[in-house]
């Protein structure tokens, strides 16, 4: 039986009071609830304050480039579907630099879970607007206020009929842990956008701001109803719904790939006689084809 201690406890490079601490806690609890052992978990992250998170627990870790965690996770999962692959990074990383991969990850539907530390700001680079920053928010680099419309990852993911779309909040650790657990259990792409106060740079969307607005979905909410989900996703104002907003049971990418029917790619032998046949086919040897 795996326990929360198996996931360790480490010093972090985060600011005191940051929402990242609860997020880390929520992730660990979810993994324990899921009964996953560290050796079978792979965290893939990008660059940013959020992206440091996997360094603060015990697991396999590939901490790659800013914005590029989805493709790395995709490659790793396809090579070894036995790993539980979790992508964890910030809003800038996943929706800004990595925007195109976000779209592709939804469409490709590989069985990875994306946990986004959404603090609506670029933390590590000291407070520029991120894609999820509110219109009008003032920063050093946007002194006149953000002009671009806020990117709503939940709305876009629902519009694209992603397999699993959820929102949570670091101020609700139980909810967060449970949501992540569900996301990890989901077979296919799963998004958990986590509202996470940044005490150093985001003075607008602070803990109180989120706390006041976040409202769990009513019991009986049917996440399989796309129209309802789209309407729910559009709510972002005095109330912000948290929970599993949309889900469907599209089979994951892996289930369509013939080569994966026989198990992971890792550790396979080369079938030399099959290879000889391929060589002859390509080379047009008599009678083959």
């Amino acid at each position, binding site marked *: 039986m795996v326990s929360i201690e198996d996931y360790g406890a480490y010093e972090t490079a985060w600011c005191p009071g940051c929402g990242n601490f609860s997020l880390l806690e929520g992730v660990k609890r979810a993994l324990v609830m899921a009964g996953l052992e*560290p*050796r*079978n978990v*792979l965290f*893939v992250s990008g*660059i940013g304050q959020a992206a*440091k998170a996997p*360094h603060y627990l*015990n*697991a*396999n*870790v*590939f*901490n*790659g*480039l800013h914005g*590029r965690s989805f*493709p*790395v996770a*995709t*490659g*790793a*999962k*396809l*090579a*070894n579907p*036995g*790993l539980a692959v979790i992508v964890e990074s910030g809003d800038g990383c996943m929706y800004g630099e990595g925007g*195109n*991969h976000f*779209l*592709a990850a939804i469409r490709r539907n590989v069985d990875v879970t994306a946990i986004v530390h959404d603090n609506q700001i670029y933390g590590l680079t000291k407070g520029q607007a991120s894609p999820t920053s509110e219109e009008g928010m003032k920063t050093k680099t946007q002194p006149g206020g953000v002009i671009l419309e806020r990117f709503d990852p939940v709305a876009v993911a629902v519009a694209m009929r992603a397999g699993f779309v959820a929102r949570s909040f670091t101020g609700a650790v139980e909810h967060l842990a449970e949501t992540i657990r569900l996301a990890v259990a989901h077979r296919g792409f799963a998004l958990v956008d986590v509202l996470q106060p940044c005490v150093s740079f985001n003075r607008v969307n602070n803990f109180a701001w989120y706390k006041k607005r976040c409202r769990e979905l009513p019991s009986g909410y049917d996440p399989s109803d796309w129209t309802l989900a789209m309407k729910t996703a559009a709510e972002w104002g005095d109330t912000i719904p948290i929970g599993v907003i949309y889900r469907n049971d599209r089979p994951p990418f892996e289930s369509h*790939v*013939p*080569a*994966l029917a*026989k198990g*992971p*790619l*890792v*550790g*396979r*032998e*080369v*079938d*030399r*006689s*099959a*290879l*000889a*046949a*391929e*060589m*002859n086919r*390509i*080379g*047009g*040897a*008599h009678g083959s*084809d």
Partner: protein
Amino acid sequence: MHSTNILIGGEAGQGLATVGELLSRALVRGGYFVVVTQSYESRIRGGHNTFAVRVGAEAIDAPAEEIDVVVALNDETVLLHLPELSSSGLVIADASFCDADERCVRVPFKDLAPKQYVNTAALGVVCAVLGVDRGIVSGVLEEAFGRKHPETMEENRRALESAFAWCAGRPESSRPLPPAASPSGTSRLMMNGNEAIALGAVSAGLRFAAFYPMTPSTTIPLALVGMAGRMGLVVEQAEDEIAAINMAIGASYAGAPSLVATSGGGFALMVEGVSLAAMTETPLVIVVAQRPAPATGLPTRTEQADLEFVLHAGHGEFPRAVFAPGGVEECFHIARKAFFLAERHQSPVFILTDQFLADSYRAVAPFDVASLEWVRPGADPAAVSAPYLRHALTESGVSPRLLPGASDHLVVTDSDEHTEDGHLTEDLGVRKVMVEKRLRKLAGIRAETIPPEYEGSDRPELLLVTWGSTRGAAREAAAALRGKGLDTASLHFSQIWPLAPEQFLGRLKNAGLVAAVEGNATGQLARLIRRETGFEISERVARYDGLPITPQYILRELSVEGA
């Protein structure tokens, strides 16, 4: 070197590549050697494309310029290529395309076959003219269409027959090839450079490839896709090249030997990923199929202008290997070597090819796949003591690489500078030793450098230096010059980096005159050699108009008497 050069010309969409491939296949099956040069425009229909097959009874290794037989699928082809026709050459064309020249074989195609089988008739005519065995041609045709389009096979057969019959009555238009040195029924295969890379990669254990389509690299993933199911590969079309390289890195990290293939502009987008592979010490094979640039350039033509770019691609300093196969067989062997090297030194390894070689079909002896070994990624977890340090400092610079999930050892790596255990660090002392650790790997890579291939006397008057696909042209030009009494040698680099000057510097110094023959405008290999050895190559043969370097081009550019 006796050879016959056949050029098939027409518009994109007319099926000339199919005619060319079938002709080449028939020739290879007949025991001949071929060198195919494909020249096409960046469009789907129209324009002017050519498919040239140079045929030799003995081994040949370069394209030729003078044409012996033109097969013209449209009138423009006649117009454009008559000037290149040898005096004893022939043009095979519809009667309506060609009348001005007595070298025209005016074929009444509409009498020989219905419209959609004219290409088959043309194939028949050219084969008959060359004296290719009819049984071989129809066998090849059968294999190509018999299973996929049985309904049209009868018409195809008939078209071929009427073509042969028509030719039988015109002995004056016959240009029989000399008998093949190897008997018909030989087991030689026909393959182009990209197919050979794909096969070599799979034989070396490739399990994962990601790509974004880009000419002239796309036929590599295409070949892989074609065998993915049967060979157990995952070949994924990515949303862009950045995704492609990062996917391959992820797959390789997890234990699947991985490859990406692209061309200049696509590779430009992968550059950050190259640096990531180096920092995380993830094995990765990257094929860059060169085409003329900058930017989109000439998407479907050939060039060798990305050597310096590939050699220095990526921020920061790290070891890499760069190969440049000189022919189709070498594509296979170098692809294999690339995978072993990448795994052994946990570094990015590059294969530089180009459109000419990528698309150039050749006759190759079958590879001995029954005895070839493959890469087995990762170390034995049992042999590793705890705590496991993914980036442990070692004398060679190479650390034992475990695969995630394979044991209780956790595999941690980071694109930030990291401690031995893979976690990010701000310790500047660690930084220093980690830089040194990574760079130490270069010595190991250098110990495996393929020596450049030298051919010629010990103190030649002229030495031609080449890399990549120009190998054959330079060797043939050197032979031609020797034939004319100029003691000429050739030095070919199939590996560009790391260079091992002790392998070749003496050769450079012993030559009277050294000329670098490169498919670029600035002499990139020559510059690199000077950087690494101080030796300045004074003469240059450069080509950058999108066409491959031929022996004749070299002779012309050197302006050697009587060439």
